[in-house]
């Protein structure tokens, strides 16, 4: 099979295949302006059109497919044989390795089309936020691919603790500000309340949106919204082609969840095609949105500039503890994934940092790949599933999405080694 045959020509949208209607985004009660209308000034037009599309398959522009090939798509589907042996399990374990892209995670899959649509529209500057740095890195690269300038608001605690992430973004030509910053009204307000506020994804998002609006730039969105999940479906669609090429079908699919984009991107094509019988979303026990979150309308951003969406949420003002898996610190879960969790199509598990550290170490020792701490949550679930399969003597096939590598999270791992060893 040619690589370009594995890479799909269309993205997959699960909305028309959901078990029940997806509650629409809406403006809050007594709104003094329409946030839905404001989206027109925030996002590139085509991105917005795709956000609300009902088409099951959306064509991937030729130019975007071309870039996908250039960044190393299709990413490999690999079998974790040494891990299987280590666990002495009858289960087969496969993983899709999104860490094989230049920016080291799946985030580039949506950064490229969003930057492309901005470029096509004549926009010359894009803005976003980043927590751990993965999304910001992807935006900086995608922007530079299309000759756009990029500004990235980076959660201050990461900005200070992850200087290497900042360096990559700067190498790609990105302008990086620590958030809360003095560049926006929202940032200045937060700082005046507490000058030592170390920031959150919600605050950085609010700053990025305000900054984009203020300057007439466009904002690129990293997770949660349907359009991001749509673009990420390239992961699962490729995996389906790869599985069919080797004559296998996964029974259980696993992924970690921050906003839900890599999980959805990996599993939705399988859910839509009714392949597999269990889909397991894994979150952080320290940010317990599956076990403690409420399914209700909430804002995706702390400032409330975006329309409200119905999702599992810990509340937009939730302040997450400073766990190392920065990408899992978000307060909500993508609306479609929230609905599938509510309807029990998707199961969930939550693991603590100590547990995922052990899993990451086992994976690194057996397979050689240092996983991103976010992805290590999925690995922990896979290890548990493989052990359960051993106990029940089940010859199942487990597949998970290794959403990123952890080579830029080594200081985190160093700290975890000190803490948990």
């Amino acid at each position, binding site marked *: 099979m040619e690589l370009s045959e594995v890479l799909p020509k269309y993205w997959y949208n699960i909305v028309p295949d959901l078990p029940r209607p997806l509650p629409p985004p809406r403006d809050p009660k007594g*709104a003094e302006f329409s946030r*839905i209308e404001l989206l027109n000034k925030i996002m590139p037009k085509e991105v917005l059109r795709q956000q609300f599309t*009902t088409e099951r398959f959306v064509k991937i522009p030729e130019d975007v497919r071309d870039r996908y090939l250039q960044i190393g798509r299709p990413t490999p589907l690999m079998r974790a044989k040494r891990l299987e042996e280590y666990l002495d399990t009858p289960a087969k374990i496969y993983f899709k390795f999104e860490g094989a892209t230049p920016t080291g995670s799946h985030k580039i899959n949506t950064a490229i089309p969003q930057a492309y649509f901005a470029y096509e529209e004549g926009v010359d500057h894009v803005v976003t936020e980043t927590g751990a740095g993965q999304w910001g890195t992807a935006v900086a690269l995608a922007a530079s691919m299309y000759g756009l300038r990029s500004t990235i608001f980076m959660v201050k605690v990461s900005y200070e603790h992850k200087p290497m992430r900042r360096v990559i973004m700067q190498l790609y030509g990105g302008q990086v500000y620590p958030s809360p910053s003095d560049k926006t009204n929202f940032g200045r307000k937060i700082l005046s309340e507490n000058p030592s506020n170390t920031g959150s994804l919600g605050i950085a998002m609010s700053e990025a949106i305000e900054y984009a609006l203020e300057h007439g730039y466009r904002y690129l969105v990293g997770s949660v919204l349907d359009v991001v999940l749509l673009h990420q479906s390239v992961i699962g669609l490729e995996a389906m082609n790869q599985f069919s090429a080797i004559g296998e079908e996964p029974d259980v699919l696993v992924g970690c969840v921050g906003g839900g984009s890599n999980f959805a991107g990996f599993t939705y094509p399988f859910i839509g095609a009714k392949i597999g019988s269990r889909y397991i979303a894994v979150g952080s026990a320290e940010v317990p949105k599956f076990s403690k979150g409420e399914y209700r309308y909430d804002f995706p951003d702390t400032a409330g500039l975006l329309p409200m969406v119905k999702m599992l949420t810990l509340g937009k003002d939730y302040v997450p503890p400073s766990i190392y898996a920065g990408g899992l610190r978000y307060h909500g879960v993508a609306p479609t994934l929230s609905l599938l969790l509510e309807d029990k199509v998707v199961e969930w598990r939550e693991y603590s940092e100590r547990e995922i550290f052990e899993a990451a170490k086992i994976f690194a020792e057996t397979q050689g790949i240092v996983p991103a701490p976010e992805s290590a949550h999925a690995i922990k679930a896979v290890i548990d599933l493989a052990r359960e399969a051993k106990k029940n003597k089940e010859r199942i096939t487990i597949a998970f999405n290794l959403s990123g590598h952890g080579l830029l999270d080594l200081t985190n791992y160093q700290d975890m080694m000190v803490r948990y060893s």
Partner: protein
Amino acid sequence: MTRKLLVSYMTLGYPDEKSFIEFVKGADELGTDIFELGFPPSFAKYDGPAIRRSYEDVLGKYGDFFSLIRKARDVTDKKIIILTYLEDFVDNLDEFLERLKESGATGVLFPDLLIDFSSDYKVYINKIAGHGLDPTLFTSPSVPDRLIAEVAPLSRPFLYYGVRPTTGVILPISVDALVKRVRSFVKNKLILGFGLNNEDDLRRALESGADGVAIGTAYIESFENGGLTQALETVKRMRSILDEYS
């Protein structure tokens, strides 16, 4: 060719009783086929800014909205579908439906029915029909195809398909693709609404197989900008576009 239907929306009693009645009367004469009248809910959660403004405007003005339905009934013979949210009336639904019927309404449309009450929507449809009213169902792109196909035959006198996530907010969408798609599995009359106040969208909807359109936001905005005269001008303009395709 068959006549394309004009469904005219107006908030009950907006902007004042006299203009409201004049509007209904005028819109009937200018070729409205069906009326949709908005009964102010406590929170018009799936509506856009213009319709929300109109609700806020009328809320303090009247003690009784049923009598306004009755007064509208007196000036038109067309069907009157009441648009409001089930959420507010779910606890005393029978009484509410009975009063609607007595006031001269012919049907009711709850935009939140399939979204927030999806597991037992059939119970509510039966209740509505049991009171001699038409259940008009509201669907949108976020309603799964399977469900649209399932509910379409239950919807009378047409199936309402809202192409945008909220009323009157213009977002870039492909109207033609949306319409062609639902048209392929919806056999009854298909009326499009939600933010269809630009002519381009309207034409594309009609070309793609819609049986008619529902107009609301455009009337409210006309009222805001130029009062009753301009609102009726808008009715005339909409009718003439529809007639090109009739």
